[in-house]
């Protein structure tokens, strides 16, 4: 999958400090170095407050980094402004946790998906309507859903629509910030399946942020473990149980609830009794 060894996105020594009035600032990110290779899915785990979301916000320029550099394909994008920033944003799309909060409640789903296509002048409006239908069907919704308002869709369907909008502009990188955390476990599985399909099909690189290690392991190639604003470990997903060394990673692993383990334990107990 990883054919080209030069990273598509590179963070070097990134720091982010949130200033508080009259108090010492909070260091949300401390000297973070990361590489994202083309076609790769990089998972980021850590508990709340570990800096995962700050990292996502810095990459998408929703926040300015305090120091350090962000490189997108040999090009420094740390302090882009104006039209250049606008064009760069097209390449890095983001999907958030709470789909209901992303929509304009008075804008129909079709308009929501075609909006970026028109804004970036990628196509004429007639063509955009066609493309919207195609995108809706691609993410497992019906083309008729274009005429619905967001509140008429369920949480899982809303998240599908958000993903349709994100892939519409054909970005090179998609960032998922806790994209499945607000959904039911069964819906979460459907969305994860969709993400893996899309990745196979388009070869898009992605960063998948979640506090659930089991979910991250399922979708990503490498896992970055963050703790108190620092990257404490980077491991291959497939070698997680054997290669993870850091005590914090271990504690995350032990807090993942496993049905299989429990079933085994209960069966043993049953036999003893």
């Amino acid at each position, binding site marked *: 999958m990883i054919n080209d060894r030069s990273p598509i996105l590179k963070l070097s020594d990134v720091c982010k400090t949130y200033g508080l009035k009259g108090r010492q600032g909070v260091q949300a990110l401390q000297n973070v170095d990361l590489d994202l290779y083309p076609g790769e899915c990089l998972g980021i785990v850590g508990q709340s*407050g570990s800096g995962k979301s700050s990292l996502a916000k810095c990459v998408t320029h929703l926040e300015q980094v305090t120091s350090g550099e962000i490189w997108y394909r040999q090009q420094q994008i740390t302090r882009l402004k104006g039209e250049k920033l606008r064009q760069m944003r097209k390449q890095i799309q983001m999907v958030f946790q709470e789909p209901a909060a992303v929509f304009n409640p008075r804008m129909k789903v079709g308009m929501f998906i075609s909006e970026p296509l028109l804004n970036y002048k990628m196509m004429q409006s007639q063509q955009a309507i066609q493309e919207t239908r195609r995108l809706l069907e691609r993410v497992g919704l019906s083309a008729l859903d274009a005429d619905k308002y967001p509140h008429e869709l369920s949480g899982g369907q809303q998240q599908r629509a958000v993903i349709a909008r994100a892939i519409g502009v054909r970005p090179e990188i998609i960032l998922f910030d806790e994209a499945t955390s607000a959904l039911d476990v069964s*819906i979460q599985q459907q969305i994860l399946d969709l993400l893996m399909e899309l990745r196979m099909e388009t070869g898009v690189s992605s960063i998948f942020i979640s506090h659930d290690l089991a979910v991250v*392991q399922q979708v990503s190639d490498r896992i970055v473990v963050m703790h108190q604003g620092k990257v404490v470990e980077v491991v291959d997903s*497939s070698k997680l149980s054997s290669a993870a060394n850091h005590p914090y990673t271990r504690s995350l692993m032990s807090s993942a609830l*496993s049905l299989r383990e429990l079933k085994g334990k*209960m069966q043993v107990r049953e036999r003893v009794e």
Partner: protein
Amino acid sequence: MMQLRAETTPWLEVKDLSVSYKEGIPSLRDISFSMKQGEIIGIVGESGSGKSTLIRALLGLLPVGGQYSGGEITFRDRVLLRDSQQNWRGMRGKRIAMVFQDSGSYLNPIRSIGSQYVEAIRAHFPMSRKEAWGLAVRTLARMELDDPERVLHSYASQLSGGMKQRTAIAMAAALEPELLLADEPTNALDVTTQNEVMSQLSKLCADKGTGMILVTHNMAIAAHMADRIGVMLDSRLVELGDTLRVISNPEHAYTRKLLDAVPELEGNKHDQ
């Protein structure tokens, strides 16, 4: 747990309970189950399956537009549905308490935690403010919150999600209810905090012999906490059985689907 189950007459009994909303859409259809003292029942289902309506119905707190269209709820020796509002009020909080999914948003943002806490206790027990404060400190300490005094002096916005949730559970447990209803108590929390909150809930139930109905969409959580698991689909209770039986040998196809959806860490995967 054994001695608690010695009592054979059902402790809480729900018979053919039906609830519908204004437009006539049924939200609960003929739900029947019974519960022994000190038992923990997990109710699992997707959003919209009626699981939250079920525990709200048990407390007489249906959302606007909801009405009971049939059935009976008996708790100990009282038939709850025929009770007046007055009697319900004596029941809620004191004998049956509830923990909501997002308890942080139920706290008043412009009052300190302590003042709300003391008010809640004094509404049910004749106690001086000082005594109530002492009780609050003790229950918070039991939830393993580091500095109970500081928590009581702070405002909701100054606490993290996990702390707020633990405070809310402590508040619900302060009055030592006989039955605790928990609606997705760990949904908004991190995996690590989730485990802490869960272990404290089970400790509480084991210590005081409190019965609990735990509503969740995650089969793994229910399996770790509950003695029995009920599965809801389209406002019906489609399966109810001992935890081990449900997770190892599910009867309903939908139960199997819910079990498969639980994400597992590679490495403790068994071969099917």
